[in-house]
């Protein structure tokens, strides 16, 4: 099955729309309610980052979400931007993290909620996340 795509102008007002659309598509693909909550948060994080990357560099181009069920009981979401890209930080133990930092929580959440995630540099950043449709494959905390 081909993916649905959502192209969003780089404006943070659209992050809620991204969550909703992906959630409805995943529900239609049979995802359990509890798992939908994980998906919603991870999509929110990656979309926020992509939109912010365009805003930081004043890029008017849209960010593109592509999503749909995979053949193998998962639901995949790819979020692509054409911003400057970044090197995802190494997986670190929580205990080593400075609690008073107000940033840097998004990538931790994506890693903690998705079954797996790939960060790839292309024209900008491409973040591909996969989520089990049922609850059995619930992603382990990424530390």
């Amino acid at each position, binding site marked *: 099955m081909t993916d649905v795509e959502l192209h969003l102008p780089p404006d*943070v*007002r659209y*992050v*809620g729309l991204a*969550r909703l659309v992906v959630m409805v598509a995943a529900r239609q693909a049979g995802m359990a309610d*509890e798992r939908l*909550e*994980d998906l*919603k*948060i991870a999509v*929110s*994080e990656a979309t*926020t980052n992509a*939109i*912010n990357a365009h805003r930081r560099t004043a890029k008017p181009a849209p960010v593109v979400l592509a999503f749909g069920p995979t053949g193998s009981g998962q639901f995949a979401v790819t979020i692509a931007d054409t911003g400057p890209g970044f090197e995802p930080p190494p997986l670190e133990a*929580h*205990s080593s*993290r400075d*609690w*008073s*930092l*107000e*940033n840097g*929580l*998004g990538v*931790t*959440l994506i890693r*903690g*909620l998705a079954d797996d995630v790939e960060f790839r540099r292309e024209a900008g950043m491409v973040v591909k996340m996969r989520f089990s449709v049922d609850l059995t494959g619930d992603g382990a*905390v*990424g530390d």
Partner: protein
Amino acid sequence: MELTLNHRKEGDRTVLEVGGEVDVYTAPKLREKLVELVGEGHYQIVVDMTKVEFLDSTGLGVLVGGLKRVRSHDGSLSLVCNQERILKIFRITGLTKVFPIHDSLDEALQDSE
């Protein structure tokens, strides 16, 4: 799709009731509210998140910012949250060790920390 914010005094505490969705679009309002409260001398804050429908890292960051602010006045910021889906993101980010988190408002108000 909206954020609602209401606060009231309960003894020496200030309860800030947050409802709706806290994300990158709405979080600035929550940040402003916390800055305003601390500016007005509210240093013992209980954030009641019972009616929060969505919270992501931007919201977490704002709460961390609020905590730093009240601590600089020797105050406290505790949370009321009984929703598993929200507790989960505090656990994943290790913030359960940073915020006192209570099941109910009563419990939060009785806590003498």
